[in-house]
C-alpha cells in the first residue's frame, strides 16, 4: 500500500469531517467568546454582603455626613448621608473619590525617618523616642517655646489635645492654617465681641450679594451652599456675583458685576453710602441694637460717595446706586464675602465692610441672615498643672507675632512664619509638627516656605500621604485616613447651626499607621512629669468618648448631633461688646477708617497683567491632593494632558500677540512656568487666571507634574490691620514661548 499525497488528503478530509462531527470546534468557539469577555485581569468587584456605615467626611471643613457602602470588609462607594442637616444626601466629587484616598498608592504605610536624604522605615517606638528626646532637650534648656505646630483647625479633640500638649509643655506656638475663616471670625469679634464662627441662612434669604464668593465652587461647606443656592433660586430669590471673572457661580447668578479686583470692600462702603444717604437702612436695628453708627456714617458719607467709589471700582454711579437700592429694598438681603473657595484670608477691611453692610440692612441674627455660631463647648477636660518651665515657655511671645502689637486681635499668622524663620541666623522653631496641613503646597511663595523648612532641625509630619510637606519632613508619623478612624468634626463651616459630626472607622487600618490623637497622648506619656500627668487617657478613643459624654450615644446612632433649635432669628440682639450692641465703629475697628483698595505691588511696566487663581469643585486645593477621579474629570479648558490653560481675554491676548491654544511663558515675581493660552471672554481685560489645586510636585503619577501651582507663583501681601495674607492675585507677564 502506497501512502501518497492522496492518502494524506484523505486523512485530512476524514479528520475535518470527524472534527466537525465532534463538539470540539463548537465548544472552543463558545469558550473563547466567554474568555474574551471575562479576562482575568479585568477588575471585578468581589461579591459579598453590602452594609452601610454612617460617618462624617473630613476631606474639607464642610462637615458633610457620608454613608459608606461596603461589600464585606471593602469600601466600594461613598455616598451622602440621607437626611443629614448639612448635605441631605449630597456628596461632592472629592468626597465621592475618598475611596481612592484609602486604597490609592500614595499612602505612607509605616513611620519613616529621613537618613541622608533617603527614607527609612522605623518602628513607632523608635520614632516616638526620637521626638521625645529632642523635646526633652529643648525643655531642659528652657527652649520649650521653640516647638511649633501647624494644624488645619483649632477645634475638636485632636487639635485640642495638641493645644493641651503645647500648653503643658510650654509653647504658645500652635498655628492654625489661614483661610477666610480668620477674617470672618475677626469681623464677628470686632463688631459683636464674640469669638464665634459665621453661619449663613442662605436658603432663607431673598437676595444674596456675593463679593466674589464661589457659592458653588467650594465656599464654606460646599454641598450645604449648593443646596442653599438652589433653594434660594427655587423660591425666586436673587443672587448677584461681584467678580472679575465669569466663574461658575457668576454664570449661575442673576447678575454678574465686574469691578476692579481689590476694590470690593469699597463697593460695599459705596452701597452703604447710598443706603444711609437715602435713608434705606434698617432703623430698628440701627436705632435699638447698634452703637458707633454716627462715626460709620461720617466715614462712608465723606469718603465713599458713589462717584468716588465709581472711580475705584470702575462701576457706573447709577449701577452702584441701583444695586444699593435693590439690596436694601429686599426683604431678606444677605451679603457674603471671601473669594472663591475661601482659601486665602483676604483683607479684614473687606470683611468688615460687607459684615457692616449686613448690619445696616438688619441681616444680623435675623432669619435669612448671618449668625454667630458659638464655638463647640463639649471639650471639658481637667485644668492642666503647669510647671515653671511650661509657664515660662507660655510667657514667650508667639513666633508668628499674632496676638500682640498691631496684630493683637489676630490669633494665628502662619504666613509670617517663613519670613521670621528666614530672617534670623538660627531658626526660632527647632521642632515643627505638621498635621492636617500641607504648607509647602498651600502657602504663597512656596520657595520661601521650603527655605524656612530647611532651617528647622526637626520637622514631623503626621500626614497619611507623601505630600509636599511629608517629602520635606524629617519624620513621618502617618495618621489613619478618615475611613479608618474615630474623630469628632466639631462644626460645618458656614452652616448656621452648631453641629458635631462623628467620623468613624469603616475598615480596619490597612497599614502600620496610628491615630494622631493616640500619638499625642503617647508622646506626652513618654515625656513623663507634668506633661504625662495632663494626659491620663488610655487611648484617643477613650478620650473622645469621655469628651463627647452625653452626645456620644446620639453620635454613634445618628452620625451627627445638631442643635436644631438654634437659628439666626432666635438669637438675641444683645451683643457681647462693651456697649452690648453691634458696633459699627470702635477703637479696635481701625481697618475701615483707613480703607484703601488692596493693590498688588510690583512693577507694572514689567508685569503688566494680574494673575488671579480660581477654584473648581473638580480640584482639591487644600492639604488633601486631588485623587485620580478628580483629575480625570477635569475639563480640557482647565488642563490639557500636563499643561494648565491660562485664561486670557482675547483683547489682552491680541495686544500681547498670543494665540489661542499655543504655549506661553507665564512669569511672576515668584517664578515662571510654561502654560497654554485659552481665550476667554469671561475674564476682565488685563487679568489672567489659572486654577488652584494643580502643579503638585509630590503625590503620585496621577497628580504630580500636572499643571502649575498658583501658590508657587504668588507672593504674600501682609494686611496692615491683621498681618494675614491679603493678596488676591499677583503681578504677571505673559509672553510667547
Amino acid at each position, binding site marked *: *500500500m*502506497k*501512502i501518497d499525497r*492522496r*492518502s*494524506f488528503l*484523505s*486523512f*485530512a*478530509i*476524514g*479528520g*475535518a*469531517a*470527524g*472534527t466537525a*462531527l*465532534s*463538539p*470540539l470546534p463548537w*465548544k*472552543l468557539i*463558545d*469558550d*473563547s467568546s*466567554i*474568555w474574551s*469577555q*471575562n479576562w*482575568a485581569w*479585568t477588575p*471585578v468587584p468581589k*461579591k459579598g*454582603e*453590602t452594609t452601610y456605615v454612617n460617618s462624617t467626611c473630613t476631606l474639607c471643613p464642610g462637615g458633610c455626613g457620608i454613608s459608606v457602602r461596603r461589600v464585606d470588609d471593602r469600601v466600594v462607594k461613598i455616598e451622602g448621608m440621607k437626611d443629614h442637616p448639612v448635605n441631605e444626601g449630597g456628596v461632592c466629587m472629592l468626597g465621592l473619590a475618598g475611596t481612592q484616598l484609602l486604597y490609592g498608592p500614595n499612602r505612607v504605610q509605616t513611620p519613616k525617618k529621613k537618613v541622608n536624604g533617603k527614607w527609612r522605615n522605623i518602628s513607632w517606638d523608635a520614632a516616638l523616642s526620637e521626638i521625645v528626646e529632642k523635646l526633652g532637650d529643648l525643655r531642659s534648656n528652657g527652649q520649650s517655646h521653640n516647638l511649633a505646630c501647624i494644624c488645619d483647625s483649632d477645634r475638636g479633640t485632636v487639635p485640642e489635645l495638641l493645644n493641651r500638649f503645647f500648653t503643658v509643655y510650654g509653647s504658645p506656638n500652635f498655628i492654625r492654617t489661614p483661610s477666610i475663616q480668620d477674617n470672618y471670625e475677626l469681623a464677628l469679634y470686632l463688631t459683636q465681641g464674640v469669638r464665634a464662627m459665621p453661619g449663613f441662612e442662605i436658603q432663607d434669604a431673598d437676595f444674596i450679594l456675593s463679593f466674589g464668593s464661589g457659592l458653588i465652587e467650594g465656599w464654606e461647606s460646599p454641598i450645604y451652599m449648593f443646596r442653599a443656592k438652589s433653594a434660594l433660586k427655587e423660591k425666586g430669590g436673587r443672587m448677584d456675583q461681584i467678580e472679575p471673572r465669569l466663574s461658575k457661580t457668576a454664570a449661575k447668578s442673576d447678575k454678574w458685576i465686574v469691578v476692579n479686583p481689590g476694590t470690593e470692600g469699597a463697593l460695599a462702603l459705596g452701597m452703604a453710602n447710598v443706603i444711609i444717604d437715602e435713608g434705606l437702612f434698617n432703623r430698628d436695628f440701627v436705632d435699638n441694637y447698634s452703637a458707633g453708627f454716627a462715626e460709620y456714617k461720617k466715614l462712608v458719607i465723606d469718603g465713599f460717595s458713589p462717584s468716588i467709589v465709581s472711580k475705584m471700582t470702575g462701576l457706573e454711579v447709577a449701577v452702584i446706586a441701583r444695586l444699593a437700592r435693590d439690596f436694601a429694598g429686599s426683604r431678606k438681603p444677605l451679603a457674603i464675602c471671601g473669594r472663591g473657595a475661601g482659601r486665602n484670608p483676604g483683607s479684614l477691611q473687606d470683611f468688615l465692610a460687607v459684615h457692616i453692610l449686613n448690619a445696616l440692612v438688619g441681616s444680623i441674627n435675623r432669619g435669612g441672615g448671618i449668625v454667630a455660631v458659638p464655638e463647640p463647648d463639649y471639650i471639658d477636660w481637667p485644668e492642666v498643672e503647669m510647671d515653671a518651665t511650661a509657664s515660662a515657655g507660655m510667657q514667650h511671645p508667639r513666633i508668628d507675632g499674632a496676638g500682640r502689637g498691631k496684630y493683637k486681635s489676630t490669633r494665628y499668622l502662619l504666613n509670617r512664619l517663613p519670613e521670621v524663620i528666614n530672617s534670623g541666623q538660627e531658626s526660632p522653631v527647632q521642632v515643627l509638627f505638621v498635621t492636617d496641613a500641607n504648607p509647602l503646597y498651600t502657602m504663597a511663595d512656596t520657595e520661601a516656605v521650603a527655605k524656612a523648612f530647611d532651617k528647622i532641625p526637626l520637622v514631623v509630619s503626621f500626614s497619611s500621604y507623601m505630600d509636599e510637606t511629608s517629602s520635606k519632613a524629617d519624620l513621618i508619623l502617618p495618621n489613619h485616613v478618615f475611613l479608618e478612624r474615630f474623630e469628632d468634626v466639631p462644626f460645618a463651616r458656614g452652616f448656621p447651626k452648631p453641629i458635631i459630626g462623628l467620623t468613624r472607622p469603616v475598615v480596619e487600618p490597612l497599614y502600620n499607621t496610628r491615630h494622631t490623637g493616640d500619638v499625642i497622648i503617647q508622646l506626652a506619656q513618654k515625656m513623663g512629669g507634668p506633661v504625662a500627668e495632663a494626659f491620663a487617657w488610655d487611648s484617643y478613643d477613650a478620650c473622645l468618648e469621655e469628651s463627647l459624654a452625653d452626645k456620644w450615644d446620639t453620635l454613634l446612632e445618628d452620625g451627627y448631633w445638631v442643635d436644631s433649635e438654634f437659628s439666626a432669628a432666635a438669637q438675641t440682639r444683645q451683643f457681647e461688646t462693651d456697649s452690648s450692641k453691634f458696633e459699627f465703629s470702635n477703637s479696635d475697628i481701625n481697618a475701615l477708617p483707613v480703607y484703601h483698595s488692596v493693590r498688588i505691588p510690583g512693577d507694572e511696566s514689567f508685569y503688566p497683567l494680574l494673575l488671579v487663581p480660581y477654584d473648581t469643585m473638580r480640584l482639591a486645593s487644600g492639604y488633601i491632593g486631588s485623587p485620580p477621579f478628580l483629575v480625570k474629570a477635569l475639563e480640557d479648558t482647565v488642563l490639557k494632558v500636563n499643561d494648565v490653560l491660562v485664561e486670557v481675554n482675547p483683547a489682552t491676548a491680541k495686544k500681547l500677540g498670543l494665540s489661542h491654544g499655543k504655549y506661553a511663558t507665564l512669569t511672576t515675581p515668584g517664578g515662571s512656568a510654561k502654560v497654554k493660552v485659552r481665550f476667554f471672554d469671561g475674564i476682565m481685560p488685563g487679568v489672567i487666571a489659572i486654577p488652584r489645586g494643580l502643579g503638585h510636585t509630590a503625590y503620585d503619577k496621577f497628580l504630580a507634574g500636572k499643571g502649575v501651582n498658583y501658590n508657587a507663583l504668588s507672593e504674600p501681601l501682609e494686611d496692615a490691620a491683621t498681618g494675614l495674607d491679603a493678596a488676591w492675585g499677583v503681578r504677571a507677564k505673559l509672553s510667547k514661548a
Partner: protein
Amino acid sequence: MSTEDKANEVSAEAQDQEPITPPTAPEQTGPGQGAGGPITLFFILGLVASLVLGWVIFPQLLYSHKEQPVQFNHVLHNEMVEDGCASCHFFREDGTYSGVPKLAQCIDCHEEVQGESEAEAKFVNQYVLKGREVPWLVYSRQPDCVFFSHVAHVKMGQMDCVTCHGDIGESESLKPYEANRITGYSRDIWGKNIAGIKFNSWDRMKMDDCSECHVRGNVNQGSVQTKRGGCFVCHK
C-alpha cells in the same frame, strides 16, 4: 430565465460533453479502483482519530480536576437544620443572596473539632481557628458578564433550588470541581455532557437554558422596567 441565458446554457452543456471521448475512459477508472481502498481507509482513520480527539481526549484536556478545600456532607447538615437549604444559603435583609456560607455561620457549631472525620479536623484547625475563610469552589458560578438575581427567581418566581442546582442537597460528599482551562469557569455551566445534551433541568446552565424556561413559562422575556428585550437585561 431569458432566452439569451437559455442559449448560453445549452452551449455550455454542449461544450462540457465534447471532451469526453471513449479511449481515455478505461485508463481513468483503472488506477482509481486500485487506490480506492487506502483512500477510504485514510479517510476513516482521520475520521475516527478526530472523533476520538473531539469526544474523548478534548474534554479531558479542557477541564482540570480540583478537590474542594474541605469535604462537606450536605445530607448530614440538612438533617440538623430546620429551614432546609435556606438555613445556610439564605437571603439577606436587603434581598441579596448570601451564596456559599461564610465562616461566621459555621462557627456557632464548629468552634471545636467534633467527631472524628478528617475533613472536620481540617476545617476547624486550618480555617476556623485561624479565622480564614474557606476558598470554596462554586460549581454554579456564572461568568461575570451574567447578571442573575436569586431573589427574583426564588422569592418572586417561587422556584425550587433543585430546578437549577439539582440534588446537591442530597449529596454526602462534594464532587471534584472541574474548571474550564480556557474560561476558568466550572464545567457545570456547560454541563457534564460535552455535546451539551441534557436530561434534567439542572444539567446545563447556559443562556439558552435560561431563555428556554422563560419562554416556556412566558415570564419576563425582557426588562422589567422598560418591557423590552435586549442583551442588557442579563448582561450588565
